[in-house]
């Protein structure tokens, strides 16, 4: 009985964590495991279907798709990590401040956050990218900013719950200062929910980055990214569907497994939800 329960609780993480690890590994070891140079042109093997020499085929310039898909994972992972870091840092800071000060500070901050939250994310990202200039660095920044309201709201909600707990009152009675109160009492309680949100945000960041690249506003060719590969493949979809299929599948698997990982983390960190 207990065994079964544990499997229920940890199952999703156990299944998705290896996939996620594999994506990270591919990104980290890209130059080692990619069979070809992702930039190497070979006009003799243009638009070749998946086969012995090129497992996932070649694109319109004879570049190896598999190698490009592997290398492109780097852009996605880095953008995802940095954007989530920006969003989480900014959001947690604002959320803690709002919860701590309450009153006018709280309402102004959260009202502002709510308005930003209302914006269609992709629209805001597209506009920011258009003006900051199309580069991977700016993509991280644009996507990171979009995540701030979500993390802020989450953090504020959790921090407010914590502030009502008796142990916090006890800490205040003991004369614990505000900074220590935040770092020792509030933040440790915030980390769990923020982690769950981070996994989901990461998958969304990867999705947004590829959407930007797809529109030509993210990673610039010849640098491979899943988004710009799918876009290039669109022009050859009739004769060489693998050009779009392969990066799309990689993107989809990454996003899907991160979302499932988020669900799994929720099961692990908040077992109440399962009862």
């Amino acid at each position: 009985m207990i065994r079964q329960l544990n499997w229920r609780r940890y199952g999703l993480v156990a299944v998705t964590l290896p996939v996620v690890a594999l994506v990270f590994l591919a990104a980290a070891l890209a130059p080692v495991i990619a069979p070809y140079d992702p930039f190497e042109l070979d006009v003799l093997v243009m638009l070749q279907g998946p086969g012995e020499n090129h497992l996932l085929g070649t694109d319109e310039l004879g570049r190896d798709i598999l190698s490009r898909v592997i290398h492109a994972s780097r852009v996605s992972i880095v953008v995802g990590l940095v954007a989530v870091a920006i969003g989480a840092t900014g959001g947690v800071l604002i959320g803690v401040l709002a919860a701590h000060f309450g009153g006018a500070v709280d309402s102004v901050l959260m009202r502002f956050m709510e308005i930003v939250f209302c914006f269609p994310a992709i629209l805001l990202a597209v506009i920011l990218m258009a003006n900051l200039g199309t580069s991977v660095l700016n993509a991280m920044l644009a996507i990171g900013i979009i995540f701030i309201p979500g993390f802020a709201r989450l953090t504020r909600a959790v921090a407010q719950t914590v502030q009502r707990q008796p142990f916090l009152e006890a800490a205040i009675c003991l004369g614990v200062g505000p900074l220590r109160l935040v770092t020792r009492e509030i933040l440790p309680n915030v980390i769990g929910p923020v982690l769950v949100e981070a996994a989901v945000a990461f998958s969304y960041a990867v999705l947004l980055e590829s959407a930007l690249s797809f529109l030509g506003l993210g990673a610039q060719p010849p640098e491979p990214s899943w988004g710009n590969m799918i876009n290039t493949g669109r022009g050859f979809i009739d004769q060489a569907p693998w050009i779009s299929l392969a990066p799309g599948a990689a993107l989809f698997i990454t996003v899907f497994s991160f979302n499932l990982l988020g669900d799994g983390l929720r099961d692990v960190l908040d077992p109440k939800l399962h009862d």
Partner: protein
Amino acid sequence: MLALVFWRLASFIPTLIVASAILFVAVNVVPGSAALSALGIHATPQALKRFEHQHGLDRPLAVQYVEWAGKALQGDFGTSFQNAVPVGPEVRKRIPVTLQLAGMAFVVAIVLAIPLGVVAGFRHQTGTDGVVTTLATLFGSTPNFWLATLLIWFFSLKMGWLPTGGYIPFGEDPAGNLERMLLPCIALGVVSSGLLIRIMRTAVIEVMSSNFIETARSKGVGDLRLVSFHVLRNALIPFFTVSAVEFGFLVGSVVIIEDVFRIPGIGSLVLVGIINRDYPVLLAAAMTVTVIVLIVNLIVDLAAQVIDPRQVRTGHGS
């Protein structure tokens, strides 16, 4: 009740002001880039100065914003940098296109979400629930532009059943319009249903735990009647309130989908504005999309309070 409605309407104004200000700043975040992109990198400093002066770009941003907002309220979005054509009429012409696309896509999402969400919620904690929840995650994880590409590849190019894109107004040729709208709506709707299924599931679970369900059950009400009479009616209200957020995401995604299917809506106008660095066009298009999202949120808020006063929404649930 009336006071509440009034309060909601009143709080819409500052929201609109802040939202438009954010957009204005986002568009003008890099000073001087408008002139540079309109005239090209070889423009002389004098020409750039003249252009900026002509379009009032050399004034403080706050002044520019107030002037732009004042005119925008009267439907005047200025003229395009690119071809000096007034932007307002162009935007108005495109609004119905985007609304039709977003509306139909939302219907696709709802048609998928309600039955699946009800099944998952009703069979909470069973294998069926697990399958549906995973399916919801699967739908939500699909990149809509990739799905769109695959749909075109299969249904248009391989099977030849549907056109690859384009747009015909419904009034001119209803069949041709629907034929072209079908694939974009599926691409948008299926992805959006991911979140909606979860929202419906949660709403059903909530209702299922109510006392009146227990009462109905003990009176011998069958499953089918229970779902259709008691559960569905009560779950739909929170479902629609929360799903308004997803409608916002959906309208945003229109930017990409309109590009893929070459649909001349507001979304593709945003991209036109970006590619041409045509700031009046970009601002007007982006503002229109944002206002659509805000108004939908407002209507849902108000409707929810009128239908069910218990639903006082404090934030946008997720």
